[in-house]
């Protein structure tokens, strides 16, 4: 009961402290065992292994000593410091022997063996000092060599044997010490196993206790919280009264459930339309309570507003209904008008098409006219050329006539000469006749000839007269021809001028016709554009027509919607009346 009333933190501290104490105890026991093992190992090393090393060193020292001695014998003398070397080696061997004696104190068997080894070493040392060195010093190297190879070698063999026996003894004792430490380790292991079992049992007990005192009530609380979460607030639940956190938590849960139940009852009342209930918040931080209080206030004012709003909505929806009726009828009228406009646009399009055709015809006619005017210009230019040629030819004719006139002048002169000749011939004939007459009968025949000459002269004169007349005629004709040629030349000049004027006129005409043609082309192009534009207008009018029909449909739907809105307003009025604020 005491443990149950302890705070959960204290409970946890107590349990974990207990477990820590037990674990520390177990660890101390194990550490002590390890310490024992370590000590026994150290002992073995110190006692036995060091002893072995010393014996080995002594062996090496003895061998070195003997080798130095043999070297002295071989070199026939103790020169080169060999004697000093022997002395130093002897001192080292003495020191090693002393250490051996100091260390080996335990086994009696080993003690005996050590005594024997020491005796032998002493014998070896005395033999060296008393016999061999003096022999060498005296120069009896052969006897010294003999002693060295026989007695001293024997002694060394005994010393080696003794050393081996001591080492064997030491190894035996090491085996024993190892067996002993093995036994110690086994004991330690058993002890640790027992301690671990005890610790596990104790920990299980502590954990079970703690779990039972915390997890059980918490599970109950969780179950209840689940119930609340599912909205089941209809009955409360009693918990055992405890002083720890779990107990406090249970009581807090119980109070929370009470509060929630109260709020739920209030909500039920509000849901039934009773807005007269009041909720007093438990504190300033009671958000839910405050919120409920505010909500009730808000709902009251909202209901009032809604009532007003619904009234307004009802009126407005009635008005909207009336307006949509008007809109529907005007949309119908608009649709009719648009239909008429569409027909008119179609007619205008037809007219535009006709005018486009006309414009095309006009363009073609203008092109032809342009062609004709250009032909006319060329013709006038050709006429001008011909006129110029004619003028030149007229000049040539005039020149010919002038030449003719000159030639007829020459003929006239010739005729005058001939006339003169005829005159003289005449006179000659006359004179001849006179002479013939004067000569009487003899001159009669000559008189005939003279008469004949005179006749010929007369005829010549007549002929020249005729020629003169003809020449006069010719001269008159030529004068006339010159006059005519002059007139013709003037006429041709006039014609040339006229042709030039005509050319200018036709050129101007061509220019203006070209302009007209360009204008006609532009008119045709604009007319084409107009036609395209009329097509677009017609399609646009078609779209507008469809849109207006859609408008009519939409207006009907809007009318229906307004009707529905009105009914909704009425329904909402009824619903709002159920709330009594």
């Amino acid at each position, binding site marked *: 009961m005491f443990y149950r009333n302890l705070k959960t933190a204290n409970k946890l501290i107590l349990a974990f402290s207990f477990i820590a104490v037990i674990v520390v105890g177990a660890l101390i026991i194990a550490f002590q065992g390890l310490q024992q093992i370590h000590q026994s190992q150290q002992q073995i090393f110190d006692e036995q292994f060091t002893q072995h090393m010393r014996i080995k060193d002594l062996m090496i020292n003895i061998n070195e000593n003997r080798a130095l001695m043999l070297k002295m014998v071989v070199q026939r003398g103790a020169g080169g410091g060999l004697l000093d070397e022997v002395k130093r080696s002897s001192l080292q061997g003495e020191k090693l022997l002393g250490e051996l004696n100091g260390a080996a104190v335990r086994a009696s068997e080993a003690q005996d063996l050590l005594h024997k080894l020491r005796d032998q070493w002493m014998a070896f040392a005395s033999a060296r000092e008393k016999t061999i060195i003096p022999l060498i010093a005296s120069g009896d190297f052969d006897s010294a060599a003999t002693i060295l190879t026989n007695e001293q070698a024997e002694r060394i063999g005994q010393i080696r044997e003794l050393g081996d026996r001591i080492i064997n003894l030491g190894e035996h004792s090491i085996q024993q010490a190892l067996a002993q430490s093995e036994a110690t380790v086994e004991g330690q292991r058993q002890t640790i196993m027992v301690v671990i079992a005890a610790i596990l049992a104790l920990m299980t007990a502590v954990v079970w206790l703690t779990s039972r005192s915390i997890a059980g009530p918490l599970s109950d609380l969780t179950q209840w919280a689940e119930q609340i979460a599912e909205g089941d607030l209809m009955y409360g639940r009693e918990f055992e009264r405890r002083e720890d956190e779990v107990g406090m938590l249970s009581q807090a849960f119980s109070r929370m459930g009470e509060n929630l139940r109260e709020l739920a009852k209030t909500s039920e009342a509000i849901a039934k339309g009773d807005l007269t209930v009041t909720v007093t918040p438990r504190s300033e931080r009671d958000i839910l309570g405050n919120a409920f209080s505010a909500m009730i206030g808000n709902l009251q004012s909202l209901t009032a507003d809604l009532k007003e709003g619904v009234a307004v909505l009802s009126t407005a929806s009635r008005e909207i209904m009336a307006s949509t009726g008007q809109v529907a009828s005007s949309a119908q009228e608009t649709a009719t008008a648009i239909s008429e406009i569409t027909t008119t646009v179609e007619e205008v399009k037809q007219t535009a098409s006709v005018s486009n055709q006309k414009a095309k015809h006009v363009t073609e006619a203008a092109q032809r006219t342009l062609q004709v005017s250009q032909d006319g210009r060329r013709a006038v230019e050709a006429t001008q050329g011909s006129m110029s040629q004619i003028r030149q030819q007229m000049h040539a004719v005039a020149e010919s006539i002038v030449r003719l006139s000159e030639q007829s002048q020459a003929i006239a002169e010739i005729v005058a000469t001939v006339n003169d000749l005829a005159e*003289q011939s*005449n006179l000659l004939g006359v004179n001849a006749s006179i002479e013939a*007459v004067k000569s009487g009968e003899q001159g009669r025949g000559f008189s005939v000839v003279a008469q004949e000459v005179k006749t010929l002269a007369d005829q010549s004169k007549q002929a020249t007269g005729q020629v003169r007349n003809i020449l006069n005629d010719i001269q008159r004709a030529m004068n006339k021809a010159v006059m005519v040629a002059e007139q013709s030349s003037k006429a041709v000049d006039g014609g040339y001028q006229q042709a030039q004027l005509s050319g200018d006129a036709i050129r101007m005409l061509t220019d203006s016709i070209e302009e007209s043609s360009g204008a006609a082309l532009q008119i045709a192009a604009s007319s084409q554009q107009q036609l395209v534009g009329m097509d677009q207008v017609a399609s646009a009018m078609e779209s507008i027509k469809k849109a207006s029909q859609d408008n009519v449909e939409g207006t009907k739907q809007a009318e229906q919607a307004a009707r529905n809105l009105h009914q909704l307003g009425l329904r909402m009025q009824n619903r709002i009346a159920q709330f009594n604020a």
Partner: protein
Amino acid sequence: MKGSTYTDWEALKRNLQQVEQFLANEFNPSPDSARARLQERARELAEPEKEEDESDRMEALVFELAQEIYALEPEFIAEVVPLKPPTPIPCTPPYVLGVIGVRGRIVSVLDLRVFFDLPLKGLSDRNSVVVLSQEGREFGLLTDRVAGIRVLSRKRLNTRLEHLSGVRKEYLLGVTPSHWAVLDAYKLLHDARLIVNDRI
């Protein structure tokens, strides 16, 4: 180019060709035409002369002067020369035109129109001078036109010249039936009035 008279150029060309041909033929006559002409002339010449009374036959030089025809016996006629521009001589009677040179001699020219008081109608351009000459007396008579030697009938010469008047009457032998005035050259040559010897 007035009006629309169409000129027949082909006809004109044909005409010109004909003229050309005619001219060529005229100056190079064909052998036939030449022979025909010569034969005609021979025939005329072969015609026998008419038998006339030798005493009645009278040959005279016929010339025209002031629209009248005169005749002169060729007996005193030296020759007929064309009238050259006469050199006027001052202080001579009006009927003396002047003098001209004929074959190196200076011959005075008389205008019978003035001498006979005939109307002056100017000179024709075919004036010739009939030079009369006998025994150192020599002068020329201006004539309009010399017709040539003609045979006249002495019997038919009208010597009654009552109707004639003036100076002319004195120098006439007679008038032929065709009213030709036959002048008396001898009288003219020996007329004292025609000898000019004025002193100034």
